[in-house]
């Protein structure tokens, strides 16, 4: 038989135990809240596919023997717009004079067609007049004038003079762009 005193201790113990469990539950419920932080995130993406279409060009030269003049045009028969520049080489006994609407010299020996050449469009005509450099030149002898042209795609520049002509091409000899006419 348990004495009232003993029964009271048991009740007190039960009460304390229940209180401890309650405190533990409350504390346990508070722990996740205390260790979690307010965070959020957001993202987005986007991009574009490069459409670098073919550039195909055809030089057209015509030599006017009456005026000793070469008439040069370059036609863009590809799908992408390009810039064009031209220069000519001749023996030292001949002097070359350039002229033509839209063409301008940049001081580096090249003549630049300022406007972008769209697909299907030709440059204006560049006239290259060949003259004897001196009276001693034998004008009846054969001579050879070579015309070289280069093209670059239109990438950011608004005129041919601003285009990036000096950057080396990085895929080896198959990308060398000079073409002797």
């Amino acid at each position, binding site marked *: 038989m348990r004495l009232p005193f003993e029964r009271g201790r048991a009740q007190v113990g039960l009460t304390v135990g229940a209180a401890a469990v309650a405190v533990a539950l409350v504390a346990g419920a508070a722990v996740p809240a205390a*260790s979690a*932080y*307010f*965070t*959020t*995130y*957001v*993202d*987005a*993406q*986007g*991009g*574009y*596919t*490069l*459409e*670098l*279409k*073919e*550039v*195909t*060009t*055809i*030089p*057209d*030269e015509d030599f006017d023997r009456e005026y000793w003049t070469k008439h040069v045009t370059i036609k863009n*028969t*590809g799908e992408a717009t390009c810039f064009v520049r031209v220069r000519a080489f001749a023996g030292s006994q001949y002097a070359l004079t350039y002229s033509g609407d839209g063409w301008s010299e940049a001081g580096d020996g090249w003549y630049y067609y300022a406007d972008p050449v769209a697909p299907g469009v030709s440059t204006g005509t560049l006239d290259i007049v060949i003259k004897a450099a001196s009276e001693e030149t034998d004008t009846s002898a054969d001579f050879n004038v070579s015309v070289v042209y280069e*093209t*670059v*795609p*239109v*990438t*950011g*520049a608004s005129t041919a003079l601003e285009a*990036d002509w000096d*950057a*080396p*091409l*990085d*895929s080896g000899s*198959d*990308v*060398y*762009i000079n*073409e002797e*006419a």
Partner: protein
Amino acid sequence: MAKHLKTTPPSGKKRARLPLVLFVLAAVLLLTSALGSAQAALTYFSEEYDAAIALPDIGITLVENGTGVSTRDYTGSDDVWTTTHGELLANMLAEGESLELGHTYDEVLAVTNSGNIDEYVRVKVYRYWTDADGQKLTNLDPALIDLHWVNTDGAWVEDVSARTSERSIFYYTSVLGVDETTVPLTDTLTVSEALARKVTRTFEKTAEGTVVTTTYDYDGVKFVIEAEADAVQTHNAEDAITSAWGVTASIGSDGSLSLG
């Protein structure tokens, strides 16, 4: 014994009052107890109501060229978020316009605090190339996608230790207040014209002359920009940043954030 009994028991009148006193006492205790409960209940509901209107709702919006692109704001309950998810660069080109290599396009990226608590923010930016099937091209340098960083001398600080060729992570060094927008992290985007130099040319003699055909080796590749903006609470910020972002940051007395 009889003498003891004669002196200790209360009188009959006192015995009659005792239950009454106990009843009154019990009633007072009961009333007091009930009143206490009522007060507690009132206090409880009052606190609950206060907490509901002051619950911190964190939110963030990624902004491109002054327009919100994507948003994720907490609504305040039940793990429900208000979200929008947009696309970067969607308005970079006009209708029918093609991307021009070497051309500089506006690409102003910033972050707005669209929540109702102050926060610290960071932005992770990825740049990479994919083929037509969406497969990542690791042989193309992400640096050819020139996203121009600005305000990186103070307002934004890069975690250089986390930098890769594809990824850059920048932390905004100030607390971003509610409805505030950071200063821009970027201002322009340029895809290098060096891509156009990687070409293959063929020469063909025809009746018209020599036909030169230039084929671009990188025709058809796609460049991709990804931006992720993260926000974390300012309360207990150092621990919060470590926990949420996995980096060590120091918060100055003025609220400024520094890495390490």
